[in-house]
């Protein structure tokens, strides 16, 4: 029996619009073991959220469509499942925390109802029992159970996010997808929410896919990291490897754009250029227009994964030996 919970193979998701086809996810591979946390890092528009929605088969359709690839949950392929069976996975085996807690809760339903709804669906409890369990979930995330009868507008942003977490964890999912769970929150609240999520995850032995663009958050909670750029995972490794030996020029660029407290630096080093237009992605390596080491070869050939160390994969021609880096990487 393998320890693997989620396995994504060669996932492609496109949004087909009148203005053109947005290639949001292009051949993503990903594995998450039980109880493990994978950080998915990348700029806005890199395809992180689309990948996550793909796992739940909730990519808005139209215009979004899963074009190719396979997703396995505990060995079961889910892309061909009928909608009814897929529903029984959502909120139960896999649940999701969304980015903005201010809009993630239904304004006309009490928070208790919103938590108990997911319990009712998946645990076949009566209305009353589910509501009692909802109260317990609220207490678990640090909100008095008596507030279950209150509406979302009566809570602060941080508390709303706790409610969202309570909904996501109510049915004890095997995998929790957290899509930038702290981006919309104050820094002090961010730390609290992260700690809460980490504790609950350890308590229930839940695997987690943490989407973020904050490498600091990744360092704190993740076991493995995937760096995503223009719909592809360009670097994939264990957390220690990535921080000790960031290898892809894009990953290097990400680290270079973080201010360092130990060094006196006048200017930060941002990555030059902008994310490519997803309706018109560059040929070859998608990072080549912004890469300081790019050559003609990079323009024409798409790099495949190269394993530079055990469980450390990079998509870059430097590591296939086809391109010589200009100076230090």
């Amino acid at each position, binding site marked *: 029996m393998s320890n693997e919970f989620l396995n994504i193979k060669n996932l492609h998701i496109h949004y087909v619009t009148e203005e053109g086809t947005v290639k949001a996810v292009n051949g993503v591979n990903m594995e998450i073991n039980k109880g493990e946390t994978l950080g998915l890092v990348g700029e806005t528009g890199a395809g992180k959220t689309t990948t996550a929605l793909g796992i*739940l088969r*909730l990519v808005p359709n139209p215009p979004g469509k899963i074009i190719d690839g396979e997703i396995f949950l505990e060995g079961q392929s889910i892309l061909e499942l009928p*909608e009814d069976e897929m*529903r*029984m*996975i*959502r*909120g*139960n085996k896999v*649940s*999701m925390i*969304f980015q*903005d807690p201010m*809009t*993630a*809760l*239904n*304004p*006309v*339903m009490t928070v208790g109802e*919103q938590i108990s*709804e*997911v319990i009712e*669906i*998946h645990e076949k409890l009566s209305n009353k029992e589910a509501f009692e369990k909802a109260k317990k979930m609220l207490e678990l995330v640090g909100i008095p159970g008596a507030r279950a009868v209150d*509406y979302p*507008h*009566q809570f602060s942003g941080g508390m709303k996010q706790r409610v*969202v977490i309570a*909904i996501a964890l109510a049915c004890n999912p095997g995998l929790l997808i957290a899509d930038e769970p702290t981006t919309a929150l104050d820094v002090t609240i961010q730390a609290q929410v992260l700690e809460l999520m980490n504790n609950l995850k350890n308590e229930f032995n839940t695997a987690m896919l943490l989407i973020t663009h904050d490498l600091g958050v990744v360092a704190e909670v993740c076991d493995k990291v995937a760096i995503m750029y223009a719909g592809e995972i360009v670097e994939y490794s264990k957390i220690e490897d990535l921080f000790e030996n960031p290898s892809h020029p894009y990953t290097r660029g990400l680290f270079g754009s973080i201010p360092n407290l130990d060094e006196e630096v006048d200017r930060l080093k941002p990555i030059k250029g902008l994310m490519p237009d997803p309706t018109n992605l560059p040929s070859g390596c998608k990072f080549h227009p912004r890469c300081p080491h790019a050559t003609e070869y990079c323009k024409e050939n798409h790099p495949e994964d190269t394993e530079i160390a055990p469980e450390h994969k990079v998509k870059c021609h430097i590591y296939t030996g086809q391109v010589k880096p200009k100076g230090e990487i």
Partner: protein
Amino acid sequence: MHKYILRRLLLLIPVILGVTFLVFTIMYFTPGDPAKLILGESAQPAQVEALREEMGLNDPFIVQYVRFITKALTGDFGRSYSTNRPVFDEVFARFPATLKLTAAAMLIAIAIGIPVGIISATKQYSALDSISMIGALIGVSMPVFWLGLMLILVFSVNLRLLPSSGSETIKHLILPAFSLGVGSAAIITRMTRSSMLEVIRQDYIRTARSKGVAEKKVVNKHALKNALIPVVTVVGLQFGGLLGGAVLTESVFSWPGVGRLMVDAIRQKDSPMVLASVVFISVTFSFVNLLVDLLYAFIDPRIKSQYR
């Protein structure tokens, strides 16, 4: 909540004063002498003058208005110039018929508008959506009186299925209520559709789906309640439109309601009758709007917390 209702009820006073002042002014300045109307064509000028004096028609405008208001406050709207009976009693007797007609039209409008709007929104750009939207366009474009006449032509004259006038049975109600309600149904359809389309894209709908809630329940429970807030507003305003439309519908179908009474009164320059009818209709409309505002509180807890 009680305080809020009381405040709203008190606000009715200036509304009614304003309405009566407007109608009184219009009636005052329209040509035609009520005294002549009462006495008939053959009356002597001296007789007319005597009656004018007796009725206080020679007093200044503002004096006449104040006299009217003071009497109206005690429920005395005066006597009809043409029948010489108290107008209040006549309007009151006719009012249930109008209420029945507008309520039936409103029910038809809601029963068509909300479901069609929901289907149209959840199946956006489908053939069903296009058909509903074209239907809605036709619905708002048809004048009430024209639709009424066409319905009579088809269902009463040609098919001989439904009566064209009278108000005795439920069968008599079908054609007038339908012709009155179709326009509102079209507006409610469009409103429900656009409101639903907006709500269905909200994050909390995605949250509901991510919990494994069935699509039907996502639409009817999570989305609909949120989408209804603007629809309720429109329904309240439409009720006013229906009361106005009833004036025409009642004339077309010879429906014995306040609307037809008012049209006849205007034609005869029967000012007390017109004023009493308008006051009745505007008070009804104000009450319906109050009800709508209270309904918000039941739909939206955010509004409820403001009603204190």
